[in-house]
């Protein structure tokens, strides 16, 4: 630990030497900030971070142990990832109507945020440095853009229209500096599933204005059976062969297979893009954790029934949390999500979401994420996760109800 005086000296020196110019513009994700604060409060219940309450499926853990005992995890893998894992990924993708070459078009990554950052660093160059992000969308996107030396440009989703894309606003934000659009489908924090029609409109714009599409599909496996605007599987632009050179699709095993701590996922795109992203991936991490790569093979091959079970349970938890929220209709309004495991609540009356989140943490010992973390239009909202256990959800909602009694 530095003494205050010593720390102050370092800060002053850094300022003088104009150090940390890039990182000064970057903030620690508010989700992590809230988690840090919550960790200091004994018995706080966290509905903040999107961590599923489940443990990694047994079949996955066994595969990792087996690999460990075989002595095959101590060395780097190829930068692309283990060939046998990439072959499995290619097979999985083909089942979903996406055809990519495991040898040249798939990279195994250390979680989706590494894939996003590597893709952004690859894409952003010179004057083409603006990245379109939807607001609200995942809090770390904007910071990843800044890490890559780019500028996040927010396009508001329209709440009254089920958090769908406002194309008029989107078209207005696209210019010659636009390098890419980055979105999460289904969207975090709103759970919105973007329609095929809207995604094709984005593709059309990308083709005309020459920018990339980065599609983060981490929640694709959590789409609820009672969803009205969705039938069958999630549509992905990566399914359209003509868009291969435009689309970089990212998937992580963190949420679907309850493997957030394993840091494992993959990205795929046309060979032309992937060989460039590979250079950045190599300089960032060399390769994804090898033990996690062996675990991922087992997950993709044998854990689909577990994913379905998680999805069924999340749907039940969503219904549970919505029943609680209906009791709080004087304080929140919300749209029932069709996917992911978040509800994005509008605060009634309008109020500062950071302050509200801090109050709730301090007085009710419940951690939630302030809506402003997800972009400017997220202000006066909070995100709550129903990825936690039923017990946690019930306890958190009981405390929130108590909080409003005394508010």
């Amino acid at each position, binding site marked *: 630990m530095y003494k205050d005086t010593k720390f102050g000296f370092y800060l002053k020196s850094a300022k003088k030497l104009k150090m940390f110019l890039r990182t000064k513009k970057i903030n620690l994700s508010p989700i992590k900030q809230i988690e840090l604060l919550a960790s200091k409060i004994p018995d706080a219940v966290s509905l903040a971070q999107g961590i599923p309450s489940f443990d990694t499926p047994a079949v996955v853990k066994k595969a990792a142990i087996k690999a460990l005992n075989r002595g095959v995890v101590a060395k780097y893998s190829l930068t692309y990832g283990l060939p046998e894992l990439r072959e499995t990924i290619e097979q999985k993708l083909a089942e979903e109507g996406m055809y990519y070459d*495991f040898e040249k078009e798939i990279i195994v990554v250390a979680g989706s945020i590494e894939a996003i950052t590597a893709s952004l660093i690859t894409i952003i160059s010179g004057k083409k440095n603006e990245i379109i992000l939807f607001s609200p969308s995942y809090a770390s996107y904007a910071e990843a853009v800044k890490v890559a030396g780019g500028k996040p440009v927010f396009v508001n989703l329209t709440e009254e229209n089920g958090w769908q894309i406002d194309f008029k606003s989107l078209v207005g934000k696209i210019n010659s500096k636009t390098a890419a659009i980055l979105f999460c489908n289904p969207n975090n924090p709103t759970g919105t599933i973007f329609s095929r029609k809207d995604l094709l409109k984005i593709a059309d714009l990308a083709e005309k204005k020459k920018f990339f599409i980065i599609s983060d599909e981490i929640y694709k496996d959590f789409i609820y059976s009672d969803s009205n605007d969705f039938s069958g599987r999630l549509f992905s632009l990566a399914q359209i062969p003509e868009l291969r050179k435009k689309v970089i699709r990212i998937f992580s095993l963190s949420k679907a297979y309850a493997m957030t701590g394993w840091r494992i996922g993959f990205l795929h795109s046309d060979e032309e893009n992937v060989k460039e992203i590979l250079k950045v991936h190599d300089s960032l991490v060399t390769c994804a954790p090898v033990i996690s790569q062996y675990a991922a093979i087992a997950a993709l*091959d044998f854990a689909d029934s577990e994913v379905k079970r998680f999805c069924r349970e999340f749907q039940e938890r969503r219904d549970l949390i919505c029943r609680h929220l209906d009791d709080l209709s004087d304080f929140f309004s919300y749209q029932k999500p069709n996917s992911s495991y978040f509800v994005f609540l509008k605060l009634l009356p309008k109020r500062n979401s950071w302050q509200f989140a801090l109050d709730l943490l301090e007085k009710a010992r419940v951690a939630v994420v302030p809506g402003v973390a997800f972009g400017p239009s997220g202000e006066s909202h909070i995100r709550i996760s129903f990825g936690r256990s039923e017990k946690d959800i019930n306890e958190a909602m009981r405390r929130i109800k108590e909080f409003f009694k005394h508010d």
Partner: protein
Amino acid sequence: MTDIFKRVVQFKLKWFAKIYLWRIKPYVIVVAGTVGRHWIKEAVKESLTEKNFSVRTNKKNFNAEIGLPLSILDLPSGEGSFSNWIKILWLAMRKVFSPKLKSKPFDEFLVLEMAIDRPANMNYLLSIVKPGTVVLTAVTMIYRENFEDLDEIALEYRRLIKALPRNGLAILNFDDERIMGLARRANCRIITFGLKEGADFTAKNIQKISDGQKFEIGGLRQSVKINRFGKHHLYAALVKEIIRNNFKEHQKEFFSKLRIL
């Protein structure tokens, strides 16, 4: 599963699989090699299905000591559950000793991936199944931790090639030197595929197009378009063509005779 229980399960499954094969007598095509087995297996299946044969393949990665017999018996894995494995052994026994086994529509072809990860693995797998045709994809550095070098891996595939009967067929990747080195050991007919000049079935004038690949199959002067990307899909397309050309519909009867032999 404890080691002892695992060995018991493995032993019993092996014998149930052998009895099943003895009773049903399907024609077995084995797809082996360290990479690219899946798409070749699918291509072989597609080619035979087009000819209206009934074909079954391994499920997922059921291709080693326990997975292979499960694939042959068409049973799921018991995973880590003792009671599940007991149930599976019971189902296997019922299946293979059922008097109705042969009265049901059965598999004319079994297309099986075989995976090895340590020396002598192949001997064990060959003690379960005798292939009529073998497709060898490539010998690469995967699984190298249990082998001295690539030649030691190739030795395993040599065992597979040597296990083929005289009227069998070895379909070999011409682009892989080690695999071609095995050709000398074969006592049966050999057909090669690859991208290099000299293969019996070769892909020429390969073009990557927006929705896949276009190429010509050398020798046949036939133009093919596939909606997949990567060299391994060219190989799969070539093997599909080899199967199409060598397993004619009227040979059904021929294979029945083979089964009697």
